[in-house]
């Protein structure tokens, strides 16, 4: 008979494998959906690429070259293979540029945005959440909770536009609303990142902060903490050794989940601030029907979302201590 610990480990192992499999299946399904959706279009990619003046022979030649005359499944597999090797053809609007070249810097920029936001998000929400829990019902706590209630409900672009109005155009003019030259890295002008990051933070902080606070409160009330107190362990030690590690568990999972949410959320924010990332690339490509780029952006963003959610789920299980006081 396996020891309880090993049994649990094996269960987790099995779960992990299943979860990874689910992730892979999801990615596969996403790719199918993306491909199928773009096939739903009635127009002819060859016509789009060659333009109006194309002769029928040219169109036919290009169609063959693009593989449009082959069965759909073959086309899908080719496309998928291309995607996996980062060769996704050429953009329809910037026809000398490969999709990969176009999207590469954009991906970096979005990653930068997400990274900075994520770092700030986690630190601020943990600090504020813990403090609010410790000083529960203080005026500061009430004020923070109130602000969180409001911020939580606001749509992203509302927050973004309000920030622009406040800090960039009407009220004050400290920060630029938009000011990057094409392909210029945001790092060359960090001021341009302030408002996008602020917008994303305002939208996601309330959730995570409340999560931390709620979790802290639960743990503070838990039996084993009571026991420790009764045993005479000093409060600070209780806090750092017992309370925080357990309380932060849901926060870790929540952070990963929030980042996953942001993978979709950056679309609107990037478009609003014209930040040169994947999200704004998606919306501009949609405006000109640049199919290969649209496919690539959607695929990447969806994959990012799936992967981050996967990490969140795994972290949940990995980090779960034996005595969790919170159901999920």
């Amino acid at each position: 008979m396996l020891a309880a610990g090993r049994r649990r480990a094996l269960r987790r192992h099995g779960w992990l494998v299943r979860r990874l499999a689910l992730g892979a299946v999801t990615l596969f399904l996403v790719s199918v959906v993306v491909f199928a959706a773009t096939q739903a279009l009635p127009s002819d990619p060859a016509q789009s690429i060659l333009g109006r003046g194309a002769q029928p022979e040219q169109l036919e030649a290009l169609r063959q070259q693009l593989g449009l005359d082959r069965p759909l499944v073959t086309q899908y597999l080719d496309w998928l293979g291309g995607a996996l090797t980062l060769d996704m053809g050429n953009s329809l609007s910037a026809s000398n540029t490969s999709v990969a070249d176009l999207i590469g810097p954009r991906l970096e920029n979005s990653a930068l945005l997400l990274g900075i936001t994520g770092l700030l998000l986690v630190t601020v929400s943990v600090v504020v959440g813990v403090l609010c829990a410790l000083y529960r019902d203080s005026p500061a706590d009430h004020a923070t909770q109130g602000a969180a209630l409001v911020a939580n409900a606001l749509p992203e672009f509302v927050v973004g536009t309000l920030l622009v109005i406040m800090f960039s155009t009407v009220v004050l003019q400290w920060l630029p609303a938009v000011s990057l030259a094409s392909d210029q890295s945001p790092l060359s002008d960090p001021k341009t990142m302030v408002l996008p990051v602020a917008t994303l933070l305002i939208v996601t902080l309330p959730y995570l902060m409340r999560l931390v606070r709620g979790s802290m409160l639960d743990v503070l009330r838990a039996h084993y903490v009571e026991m420790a107190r009764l045993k005479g362990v000093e409060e600070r030690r209780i806090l750092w050794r017992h309370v925080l590690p357990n309380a932060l568990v849901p926060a870790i999972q929540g952070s990963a989940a929030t980042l996953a949410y942001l993978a979709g959320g950056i679309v609107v924010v990037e478009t609003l601030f014209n930040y040169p990332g994947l999200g704004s690339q998606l919306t501009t490509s949609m405006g000109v029907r640049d199919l290969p780029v649209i496919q690539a952006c959607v695929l990447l963003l969806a994959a990012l979302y799936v992967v981050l959610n996967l990490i969140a789920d795994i972290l949940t299980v990995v980090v779960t201590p034996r005595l969790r006081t919170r159901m999920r």
Partner: protein
Amino acid sequence: MSFSGDPDDAKSPLDSRITRRTAVRGGSAALAVGMVAATGVGCFGGDDDDSAQEASAPSGEPKRGGELVLGITGGTDEDVFNPFYAPVAIAHARMQQVFEGFGTLSPKGPIELVVAEEVEPNQAGDEWTVRLKDGLEFHNGKTAGAEDVKHTLEFALDPDNGAQIRSQLLDVDMGATKALDKRTLRIKLKKPNAVFSNTLLTDNYNNIHLIPVGFDPAKPVGTGPFKLTSFTAGREATFERFENYWETGKPYVDTVKVLDFADPAAKVNALIAGQVLAIDAIPEGQVAVLEREDSLKLLKSQTSGLRALHMDCTQKPWTDVRARQALKLALDRDQLVAQALAGYGEPGYDIPGIRVDPAYPSDYTKPRDVEQATSLLKASGLGDTPVVLTQSDTASGLLAAAQLIPAQVAEAGFKAKLNKVDQGTMYGDNYKKWQLMGDWWGAKPYLLQVQQGLLPDSPYNLTHWEDDEFFGLLDDALRTTDPDKQNEIVGEMMLIESERGGMAVWAFPELIDGYSAKLSGFVPHAGGFSLSNYSLKNVWFV
């Protein structure tokens, strides 16, 4: 989001489908044999006249020196510096520094000569003589001569070079074309063409740029005021003064840098912040922002580019000329200029070619007449046909106007509504088949407009209009080399098209650019291209 001014800054990132279309719009077009437009001027001669450019009395004496940084919307990647393929405004801006054509549109409108001293046809119209200016030098030190002119034409005719103007040069008989002396070339045409000058002189986006024998696209060399020093596709290009430029004393500034911007608002911010010193095509909503800044100036150009509705005459109700007339009479052009262009522009009355074409009837108007429109529509019996105005946000004012037009024409009894689409759909498979759509045109002489928009194989035949009298006159015009006679015929054609045609020109927009008060020398340009057609040789730092 709408953008004003130069249509090619309309949407970012620029769709090179659009811009290819633009390229053809700007000039070259498939030609029916012998049917080329005349500007009404058969030959050109005389000196290049600079006085027209002094329109807004630039301040003080020109000083030499400085680096001029421009911000222009655009950013499609161009691998090669191709003087015959510049489909986007920003590419055109770059070309303008390094290359020059035989002629160009002058700031006031009419065509003027640049590197050519004379361009003259023979009586029959099948031989055209081009004489270059004396002392014209290329950046590599070579003196420009007839062999370079010949090479330029050969380069453009080579299908591998992707020259947009090639289709307009197909009638050139290169074998029979020969130099008469060091700087004169006699071009022989296979067929007479009374208005070959249009091809040689007008197409701004696809100007025939003079290149030397042995031209290497990787190391581009021209006769322009600046030499290319570096070029990063999609990002920036830098140029430095060409010391032996034919206009002595110019250019004034030492270097020019052209930066790509994806977003017009970013451009405006960069100008305010001083990152760039001049920008093109400011959206109307941003004009107020710039007006507040003392350190900045606005350059407003009343252009000859136009905005128009196009009716497909093969689809009801436009099959009946009365319905077409009803639409034109029902339009409230003043409202469209006031609301869709925010007042930056002047109303058009269904005739293109203002300021550029001498035959344009300057006092002509077409006041709104709803009553007449209603009765015409009723007489046609097609008033119940649903009308769908298909529109994308392509150029300033188009989508805004499309939101106002259905209500305007409803007053005459039309049942119209707007169908907003994205650019990809607009210029996709259904382009040239939309029942009613709004589009823009660049400035050009009238007959060039006809050739690009009204002939069966025109690249932009959106209206499919047929009219025996009109096309009969067209034949006459093309056979006439007498400029006055030609103008007369063209004038008649203009009136007929306004009466019966399928294109309703409703405005000539104003183009607004912005630049730092540190600069002087920009003049308004009617050609529809920003910053004085990107002619930076006249600009200096005060």
